[in-house]
């Protein structure tokens, strides 16, 4: 099927055209410079109003870039939740209106379902697999037995890993995007220079906690008699990154072993992190695991990722009703069961 997909659950307004749930024909994100220059440099962010301003343009751009038009589109995929209701409603209302006007089937998708299935847009991957979803708002481990079959194995108890990156970058005065800046600096620093805590590392189970690492970095910076710069800053970034990467990778490998899974998907914005990718590559070899990362353009929030589950649901006759509503909280485990 040729699907138009729409995402507006958090900061990004995004639309994409995806064929058969595997081939990305276009993948447009409003904060991308080329689109966003057209509306005067306004960055579409949290505000629902910004999503409203961007949505029509982004949808049109996705169709144009794919060399298609609404006449060819056979179905619509859209993020239903979780997220901010005001933001979600912009994408969902657009999708519902288009589906109704064009008499197209609609698939209302869980945002994280898109993220963890994103690698299927680029590679063949068999179920079951383990998924580590890491972003500004998520640090979750899921067992994935098929599309629509997810079990949460663990998640953060406080801050998401991406949030810890951004907050540490801010307190180090590194600016935005914090994760990329720390990653870059970390490559030049000594990861053993400063010993930061690895919360939860030696506790059983697959829960995470990143608030303590952030606080430890904060205390370390406050204790220094002069601003942290140069090599010292690179060492700090490398040591912080080592702590986060240690915990993420160790828990993920332990979960894969406990669940008897040999395939791992690492998805979400933090999956772009080079330090994390390198460590996973080493561990994959050591433990004979297959670790798959989406391309950077499919790591952050985007609409193309919705194409994988949307195509599956629509092809198997599981379309959403035209009156489907947005949901702020939606445990991934309940997806596919019809329960909310």
């Amino acid at each position, binding site marked *: 099927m040729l699907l138009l997909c729409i995402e507006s659950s958090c900061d990004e307004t995004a639309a994409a055209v995806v064929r058969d749930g595997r081939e990305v024909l276009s993948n447009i994100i409003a904060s991308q410079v080329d689109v966003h220059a057209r509306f005067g440099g306004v960055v579409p962010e*949290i505000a629902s109003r910004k999503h409203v301003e961007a949505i029509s343009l982004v949808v049109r751009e996705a169709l144009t870039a794919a060399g298609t038009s609404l006449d060819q589109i056979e179905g619509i995929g859209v993020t239903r939740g979780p997220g901010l209701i005001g933001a979600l409603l912009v994408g969902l209302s657009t999708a519902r209106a288009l589906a109704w006007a064009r008499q197209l089937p609609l698939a209302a998708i869980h945002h994280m379902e898109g993220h963890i299935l994103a690698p299927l847009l680029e590679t063949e991957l068999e179920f079951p697999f383990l998924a580590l979803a890491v972003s500004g708002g998520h640090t979750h481990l899921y067992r994935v037995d098929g599309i629509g079959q997810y079990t949460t194995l663990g998640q953060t108890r*406080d*801050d*998401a890993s991406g*949030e810890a990156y951004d907050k540490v970058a801010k307190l180090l005065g590194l600016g935005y995007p914090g994760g990329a800046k720390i990653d870059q600096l970390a490559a030049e620093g000594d990861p053993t220079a400063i010993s930061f805590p690895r919360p939860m590392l030696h506790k059983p189970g697959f829960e995470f906690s990143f*608030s303590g690492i952030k*606080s430890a970095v904060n205390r370390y910076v406050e204790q220094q008699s002069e601003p942290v710069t140069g090599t010292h800053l690179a060492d700090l970034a490398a040591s912080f990154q080592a702590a986060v990467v240690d915990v993420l990778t160790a828990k993920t490998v332990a979960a894969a072993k406990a669940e008897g899974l040999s395939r791992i998907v690492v998805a979400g914005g933090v999956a772009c992190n080079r330090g994390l990718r390198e460590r996973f590559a080493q561990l994959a070899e050591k433990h004979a695991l297959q670790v798959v990362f989406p391309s950077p353009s499919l790591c952050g929030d985007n609409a193309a990722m919705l194409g994988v589950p949307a195509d599956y649901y629509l092809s198997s006759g599981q379309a959403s009703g035209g009156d489907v509503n947005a949901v702020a909280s939606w445990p991934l485990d309940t997806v596919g069961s019809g329960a909310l």
Partner: protein
Amino acid sequence: MQQWRVATRAEEETRLLGRSLGKAAPAGMVVLLNGPLGAGKTCFAQGVAYGLGVAEQTPVTSPTYALMNIHQGRVPLYHFDLYRLSRVDDLEDLGYDEYAEGQGLTLVEWADRMGEPLGSSLVVTISSSGENDRQIEFTAVDPAGRQLLSEVKSTWEAARSAENL
């Protein structure tokens, strides 16, 4: 009572203090929660949630990216985090007023980033005085806040003496 200062010496104690607030909080109140990065705001908020009756196994995580999380207790907890916002206009887009004027407990982290004061009954300010030591200052803003503050204090003292038994 307008102001009350408490010292806590461990994360668990900060959470227990939050729990006292959650237990005592009436519906329809706004509580602001200030303090620098790593002070323990989310930790305190976890206590508030569980004190309010949110199921203990529910993860109460930082809403920095999501901007707000809703948890169901005996009344809903609207847990806001304004860290990524800078203008009061942003709050309108979030539908903040509808929540703040609703029948839940509205708990707002980083309200001091807004540049102008947000309406509230109680302001909680956490500061760090050591690795695990925290100073927590409660300031009642209106009569409902004063009433809540005296209940938080007695709930906290009862919880503390129960722990020491």
